[in-house]
C-alpha cells in the first residue's frame, strides 16, 4: 500500500526562493511537497496533512519555528513527525531559543542539499 503513496514532506519557509529550490529538490527525489509560508499555516498543514518529514525554518511570520516545533512535539497526536529545524544562527533566534523545542535535527543555513536529502531519508526509515 505504501508503495504507491508518495512520502509527504512539509516545507516551511517564508523565503520564496528557498521554498522553490527545496520543492524542486524534494520532488526530484520522488517525494510529494507541501508548502507553508508562515507559522500558522505550518501548524495547520502539519495537522491536516500529517507529513512524513517537516523542514522548518526558525524565523517565520506569525508564529516562530521554535514555537511551531514545540506545539507539535508536545502534542501526542503529532509528536511522531520528524522535524528538521533550519536556522540562520541570528541574534533574534538566540533570543527566542532557550527552551527545549524537541526538534529532531538542526541544520544551519546555508545547508548542503546532499546532507539534507540524507537526513530526510534517515528520518523516513524511522
Amino acid at each position, binding site marked *: 500500500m505504501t508503495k504507491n503513496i508518495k512520502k509527504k514532506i512539509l516545507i516551511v519557509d517564508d*523565503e520564496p*526562493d*528557498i521554498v522553490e*529550490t*527545496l520543492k*524542486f*529538490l524534494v520532488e*526530484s527525489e520522488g517525494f510529494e511537497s507541501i508548502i507553508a509560508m508562515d507559522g500558522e499555516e505550518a501548524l495547520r498543514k502539519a495537522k491536516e496533512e500529517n507529513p512524513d518529514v517537516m523542514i522548518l525554518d526558525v*524565523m517565520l511570520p506569525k508564529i516562530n519555528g521554535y514555537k511551531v516545533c514545540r506545539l507539535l512535539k508536545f502534542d501526542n497526536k503529532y509528536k511522531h513527525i520528524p522535524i528538521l529545524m533550519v536556522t*540562520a*544562527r*541570528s*541574534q*533574534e*533566534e*538566540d533570543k527566542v531559543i532557550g527552551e527545549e523545542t524537541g526538534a529532531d535535527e538542526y541544520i544551519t*543555513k*546555508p*545547508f*548542503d*542539499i*546532499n546532507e539534507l536529502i540524507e537526513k530526510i531519508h534517515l528520518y523516513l526509515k524511522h
Partner: protein
Amino acid sequence: MSKILILSRDLNINKDLIGLLSGVGYEAISVETEKEAIKAAGEFSPDIAIIDTSIVDINIVSTCRSLKLQNETNDIQIVLLTSKDSDSQEVLVGADGYITKPFNENILIATVNAHLRIKKLLDILYTNNSELAKSLYQLNVLYNTSSQLAGTLDKTKLINIMNTGLDKSLNSSLCHALVMNEPQDATLIINSMYPITEALEEALKLRAMLSYKSLFENNKLPFELSIGDITVEKHIKEQDGLFDLNILNWDCMFSAISTADKFFGTVEIIRKNEFSGEDSTCFQTVVKQVSLPLESALLYEEIQKTNIKLEKLEKLKSEFISIVSHELRTPLTSIKNSLEMMLSGRMGEITNIQDNFLNLAKRNVDRLAGIINDLLDLSKIEAGKMEYRFEPLNILEPVKFVMSTFENLADKKHIQLFINSSKDEFNIYGDSNRIEQILTNLVSNAIKFTPNNGKVAVNIEKTNADSIDTTLFFNDSSLIDSNGELNFGQDYVKITIEDTGIGIKTEDIPKVFDKFQQIESSLSREVGGTGLGLPIAMQLIEAHKGKIWLESEFEKGSKFSFIIPLFQDTRLLTNHKK
C-alpha cells in the same frame, strides 16, 4: 581714654579719687554698692577698679571675681585700697594691686599707671590670641574642605563644599557662585544667611555676569552667556532676617574658579565686617582647591560619556554583524542549493566546462559561508556570548578526528600528515567542538601555506608551567600579564602544529593573531581565507585557560604551539595509582 571705677562708701575718698584721677586725664566714676559696681563693670567697662576694703558688708574676694567675670574680653585690673592693719591675708588674693590708706597721691597715680600698662599689654595679648584662634579655625575648615573636595567627582557637590567651606572659614553673610555648565547654561548658586529680596537676586545675577565678563575683557568668553541663561539656586540658612540691596555696600571678595586651561565659573562672598589679608588668602586657597577636582570631574564626565558611546558602538557592531550574517545566509542558501542541484544532475546532463564553473561558483559560496560563520563566532566570543560545553575529554580524539578530515586535501597536495603523541591519553576539561575548531583552523592554515610535497605534523606532549618560555606568548593588550596567568606548577598538554610551509617573517609574527590580518604574499592571495581563523583559535584557547604562540622561520616553516591545562582530577588519580 582710660576708665577707672571706684567702689567706696567713704564719700571723701570718692571725691578725692575722682578729682585726682580726672586731674591726670582719666575718666573716673564712683559707686557705693557691689551691685552697682558689677553693673558699671558691664556698661562702663572700666580698665581699672579701685575697691575700698573698709566696706565691711561685702565679701571682697567674691566681688573681685564677679567684676572680672563681668566682662571676659576686658581683663579688668583690680586695685585694693587697704588700711595698714585691718586686712586678712585672704582678702588680698583676688586683686592685682594694693595701696594702703592713707594714700600718697603720687604713689596712687603711679600704681594706677602701672596697672593701665599691664591692662594694655593684656589687651594686645588677647587680640593676638583671638586672631590665632581664628587662623586655627580657618586652617581647620580649609583642611576639612580639602579632604571633602578630594572625596567626590560630582560638580554640584564640589561647588557646595566650596560654598560651605567659604561660609564657615570666613563667616560670610552671602556667598554666590556662578557655575558654567555649557554655553547658554549657567547656575548661580546663592548661599545666604537670610532670605534675599527679588531686587537683590536680580542685582546678584547682573553683578556675577558683569564680573564674569570683566575677567575676559577683550578676549573671547569661555562660555557665551546672557543674563537670561542663568538659573538661580538658593540656600537660605535662617529665616529671621532679610537682605536687600544694601548688602552690596558691604565688603566683598571675588575670584574666578579656574585652572591654567579650564574655566568653571566665578565666586564672590559678601560680609559686613571688613576682610583681612588673611581672609583673602583663605578665600583664594579654598577657590584654588576646588578648581583641580572640578577639572577632574570634567574629565571624568567626558570619560563616562565616551564610555557610553563606546558601549553603544560595540553593541551596534555586534548587532550589525549578527544581522548582516543572518541576512547573508538566506540568499546564500538559495544560491548554494541551486548550484548543488545543477551539479547533482537533477536538472539534466551538464558538460565538463559547466561542471567546472558550477564547482568554482560553489567553492566560493562555501567560502563566503565560512567567512560569515567566522565573523559570527568572533563577534559572539568578543561579546562574551559564546556558549561552551565543558567536559573532561581526551584531546587526542579531536586531534585524530580533525586530521582525518584533512586527509583528502593533503593527498591532493601530496602533503604528509603526522600525529606524534608521547602518550595515548591527555585529559583536559574542554568543549570538544571548540577544540576541533581550534585544530581545524590551525591545521587548515598549515596545509594551505605548505607547498606540494611538504609535511604537516601535530606533536602532543605533556609540559609544565615552569618550563614554558612565556616570552614567546603573543603579547597583546589583554595578555600583558602572561606570566602571571600561568598557574605555578600547573601541568599542561602542549600541542604543536609544525609545517614545512612558507613561514612568517619575524617582524610579522606579532600581527598574525590580529583580526583580518593576513600577511601579504602571493600565496595568501592564492589560498584565500578570512584572516579570522587565528584570532578565533586564540580566543577559544584562552577560554580554555590556555595560551598560543608562534615560532617561525621565513621560507622554512611555521610552528604554532598551544597549551591547555591538564584535567586536575585525572592527575590526582594517576598519583594514587603510583
